[in-house]
């Protein structure tokens, strides 16, 4: 049985526009899954739908978590089941301090164990200790991302969903963040990752999905994906004809998926 099972979900905006078009996806426990795809393909919508942030969505289909149906539950309920979503804008409370942000991550937890978790986080991101009293908005992009992940970890998530963690980060920082994610995964947390930076994502992921126009068009282990020609060309920038021809093909390129 899969850990998170998404079957044939359809999500609409304004009751009219399809964002997800019968999408099916499975996530197994304790692995890192990456969902790749261009802007507007529905990656963010997918995560938001799972997190329950889109009202009355998905319109159709089933989302099961640990064998339990969670679609159309209130986001608070879904969160309390152990699914934590870190949005693209990181969802920090910018006017609150780092400490307060972390405190909010412990919402609903008993005091027991918080100390250890905090220690773990500070070990993972030592910079946060220095920044404890600062307002979140004064942090740099990378620090904000670390804080967001740290806060999510304090909720002891079973499934951690991250939307473009590398967005706007300098490469070095992005790599730091991804290394941290790898560590987190090794400790037993399932991670569902949405990325544009396919290279970085596939490096740490065990499995990958390619999402286009609201559908999964390709899936496989990250190794398979990395070896796929189309993926190489479209997402990894390793295509052959980079700068040569000025002529444009107007025919539709045939794809192997």
């Amino acid at each position: 049985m899969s850990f998170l099972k998404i079957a044939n979900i359809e999500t609409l905006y304004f009751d009219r526009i399809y964002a997800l078009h019968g999408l099916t996806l499975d996530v197994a426990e304790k692995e890192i899954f990456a969902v790749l795809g261009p802007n507007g393909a529905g990656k963010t919508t997918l995560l938001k739908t799972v997190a329950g942030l889109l009202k009355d969505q998905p319109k159709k289909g089933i989302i099961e978590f640990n064998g339990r149906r969670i679609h159309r539950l209130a986001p608070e309920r879904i969160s309390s089941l152990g699914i934590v979503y870190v949005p693209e804008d990181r969802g920090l409370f910018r006017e609150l301090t780092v400490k307060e942000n972390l405190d909010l991550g412990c919402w609903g937890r008993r005091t027991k164990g918080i100390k250890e978790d905090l220690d773990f986080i500070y070990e993972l991101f030592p910079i946060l200790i220095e920044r404890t009293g600062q307002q979140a908005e004064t942090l740099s992009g990378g620090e904000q991302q670390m804080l967001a992940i740290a806060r999510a970890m304090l909720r002891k998530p079973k499934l951690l969903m991250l939307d473009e963690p590398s967005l706007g980060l300098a490469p070095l920082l992005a790599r730091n963040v991804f290394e941290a994610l790898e560590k987190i995964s090794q400790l037993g947390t399932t991670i569902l990752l949405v990325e544009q930076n396919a290279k970085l994502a596939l490096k740490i992921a065990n499995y990958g999905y390619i999402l286009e126009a609201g559908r999964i068009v390709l899936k496989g282990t990250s190794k398979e994906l990395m070896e796929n020609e189309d993926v190489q060309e479209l997402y990894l920038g390793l295509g052959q004809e980079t700068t040569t021809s000025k002529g444009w093909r107007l025919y539709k390129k045939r794809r192997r998926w």
Partner: protein
Amino acid sequence: MPLLEIKDISISFGGIMALSGISLQVQEEKIIAVIGPNGSGKTTLFNCLTGIYHPNEGEIHLNGENILRLSPDAIAELGIARTFQNLRLFMNMNVLDNLLVGRHLHFRKNPLLPMLRIRKEEILHRKIIEEIIDFLDLQAYRKARVADCPYGVQKRVELGRALALEPKLLLLDEPISGLTSEEKEEAAYRINEIRGRFQMTILLVEHDLRIASRLADSMVAFYYGQKIAQGTPEEVQRNPEVIRAYLGDD
């Protein structure tokens, strides 16, 4: 004389330099691509060019005229049109009206005409709009509310709206991001076609190096608010600093 001349502009937000000392010249009927990682100041440059931000220092000349302190609408009147990275359409209007807003500057603004419902002007502009609709293949969506259209169509509408302005300089902020691969090809083809058909100069920001380099006559790379390379696409892509900025140190 270059169509657009940017001299040494700088702008900072809350102490962070978003652009520092950028200079750039754009010749007529050329396509220039601005590349760079997220947050490197590409969009900020566009915002400075269209008067949404006013740079702290420097000069911007369009056809020899200083446009640095002008308001966005005045700049549009001088012939700069743009699209936005996150679509900024008039979501509650239909596609046709969106394009007609683009024609706004070309209307004869006699208040009596609308009041008495004299629509000669309107019909004239409708004809031009129809050409754009044909060009962008929007016929099926003419009367649809923009909010109801798929993302790809919305992108085209935004492009069409900028075209309707008949600008001398067209600024495209990530015109092909978020499109499916087929749409990307089509969009790139259209951008190339715009130059030929409408004789416009195009400045575009793009993430996708592959397409950008195929499209552009020359390329500029930004990194943390600074221009790190300029030249033909080949040159820029081979520039070690660019490679580092994009791919990291390894």
